[in-house]
């Protein structure tokens, strides 16, 4: 079924279908990554956002071309939702020359300046000041853009967030603080690490706080739109998205610390299953949705194949590119 027919079938709710497609792409990408990692085809470590796709899809759906974002170690979903080239993405994670960052960065630092992606980040909390600075640039240069800082619930314990909340409030910066609250910091429940309530912390700085079910793609998209409007018109806003991390902190983490009840509950909340059910409810045929899954998986498989075939990065060229080459500016 082509997408025109599909949109017709769901009675004009093409936005949900778009969100669903984005989520499927993240899901397929990370499912492939999980396997590639297990097979030793991905060096280092990777943190998957399986289960959190609706946050990425929802938030990025609210962004325009001038907008920017900085994200975390768990940033695949965000960069995919923002539209990163799938080939460049896989090549990066597989350490290839054609990688988005020429194989220098891997999963934790994927960036695409053309899309306003100021990088995933290996330092918990570091995305927040980066986005703050980007928002300052938007404001100073009057680009009309806003900046998004993605951060996890565990990052609330880093001073950087609190310093940035203050500065954003002080300067009325066009910025969304997106807390992707999956309840976990690595192997510990964040509740055992952080005693603050983000809504109240934001409130203490006079910053509006929006709370949303981050496993509901439409609700997240709505909230993100509201947040983006607020950021553009008024100033900073905190968007807290409640979500679930399906896999371990990193691939290979057996998650023995999570009880079976929680694991069982996850399936029920699966954002992809939820948007699929909703689309079917709206009249879309399961077969059509399955077809999108297959297409998406095929796209991913092709990207993986292309990555495997890609060359390894050149060491000397890499060494020569630590600083901006003379004459480049």
């Amino acid at each position, binding site marked *: 079924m082509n997408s025109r027919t599909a949109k017709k079938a769901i009675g004009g709710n093409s936005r949900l279908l778009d969100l669903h497609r984005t989520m499927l792409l993240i899901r397929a990408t990370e499912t492939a990554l999980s396997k590639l990692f297990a097979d030793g085809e991905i060096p280092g470590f990777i943190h998957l956002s399986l289960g959190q796709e609706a946050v990425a899809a929802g938030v990025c759906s609210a962004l325009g071309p001038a907008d920017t974002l900085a994200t975390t170690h768990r940033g695949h979903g965000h960069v995919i939702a923002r539209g990163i080239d799938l080939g460049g993405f896989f090549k990066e994670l597989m350490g290839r020359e054609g990688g988005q960052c020429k194989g220098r960065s891997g999963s*934790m630092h994927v960036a695409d300046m053309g899309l306003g992606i100021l990088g995933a980040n290996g330092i918990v909390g570091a995305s927040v000041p980066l986005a703050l600075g980007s928002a300052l640039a938007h404001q100073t240069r009057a680009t009309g853009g806003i900046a998004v800082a993605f951060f996890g619930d565990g990052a609330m314990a880093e001073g950087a967030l609190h310093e940035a909340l203050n500065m954003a409030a002080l300067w009325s910066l066009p910025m969304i603080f997106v807390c992707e609250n999956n309840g976990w910091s690595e192997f510990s429940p964040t509740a055992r690490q952080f005693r603050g309530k983000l809504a109240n912390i934001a409130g203490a700085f006079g910053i509006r706080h929006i709370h949303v079910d981050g496993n509901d793609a439409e609700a997240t998209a709505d909230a993100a739109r509201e947040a983006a409007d607020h950021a553009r018109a008024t100033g900073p806003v905190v968007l807290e998205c409640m979500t679930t991390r399906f896999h371990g902190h990193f691939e290979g983490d057996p998650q023995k610390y999570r009880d079976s009840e929680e694991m069982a509950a996850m399936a029920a909340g699966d954002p992809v299953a939820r948007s699929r059910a909703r689309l079917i409810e709206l009249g879309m045929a399961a077969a059509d949705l399955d077809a999108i899954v297959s297409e998406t998986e095929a796209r991913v498989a092709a990207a993986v194949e292309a990555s495997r075939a890609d060359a390894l990065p050149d060491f000397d060229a890499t060494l020569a590119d630590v600083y901006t080459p003379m004459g480049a500016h």
Partner: protein
Amino acid sequence: MADTRYIRAINKALADAMDADASVVLMGEDIADAGGSFKATRGLLDRFGPARVRDTPISEGAIVGAAVGAALGGLKPVVEIMFMDFVTLAMDALVNQAAKSRFMFGGQASVPMVVRLPHGGGLNAGPQHSQCLEAWFAHIPGLKVLCPATVEDAYSLLRAAIDDPDPVVFVENKALYAMAGDLPEEPARASIGKARIARQGSDVTLVTYGATLFNCLKAADALASDGISAEVVDLRSLQPWDKETVLGSVARTHRAVVAHEAVRSFGVGAEIAAVIGEEGFDDLDAPVGRVGAPFMPVPFARSLESRFIPDAAAIQAAVVASLA
């Protein structure tokens, strides 16, 4: 205990120190329930309880700052910073508070604390999870800096660090954690500031520390088959460092190469080479060679990182150059 892993030696040193001294407490992210990202603290929560093995929030600055306050208050905190790269968030606490308190307070108090910092590459962990920043700390009066290479040293130097009255930066190479080695039933107490001659030789002195020791030993093997006898000095302690042993060796070999995993420029090797050049000037028959990582962030891709980390061949080549 033959075939003890390095990480297990760290674990045992922590456990034995806690047994021996009730004021020793551990703090760090996911070190209690989870036993640490690298499992250095596995089992210690059960054994010593949550007041002495404390999971902290992701707040490196406040954790290390609190360790200083706790040390002034009669505890001996041992802090785990998950990756050395994250100590960038705790530099004020370490450099302005821990290192200077004893001095600033006119000697009224010591600050007995240890900060464990896993450094080094080899895991393809990328530019923000692989750095070797020990040269920073060696430059700071008031800090001691250790970097054990062997399983036995991991144990005995950590015990020495915890016993030490002053703040110690304890650097562990992540790539060594899984390495097995011999840990004697009664390991000798190490003295901070004493190097060890890891291999005797007569033609050239290789000065090194941490994981690079093993590349030096490999290089020495290869050189031996070419008839070159390399002495290998494992510094173990970078601040203070054992000038006497190094200069004594150079006085016999007349040649030196300093090797480490950290970036070569402005690295620890610069100080060692400068001192050899200064105090061992008349002994030297060739310039002091230096081997270290090239001047770039640690790259992610396997193919890049494997070229980035100085290997035995690079050390061998430096020795050959020094003999040319």
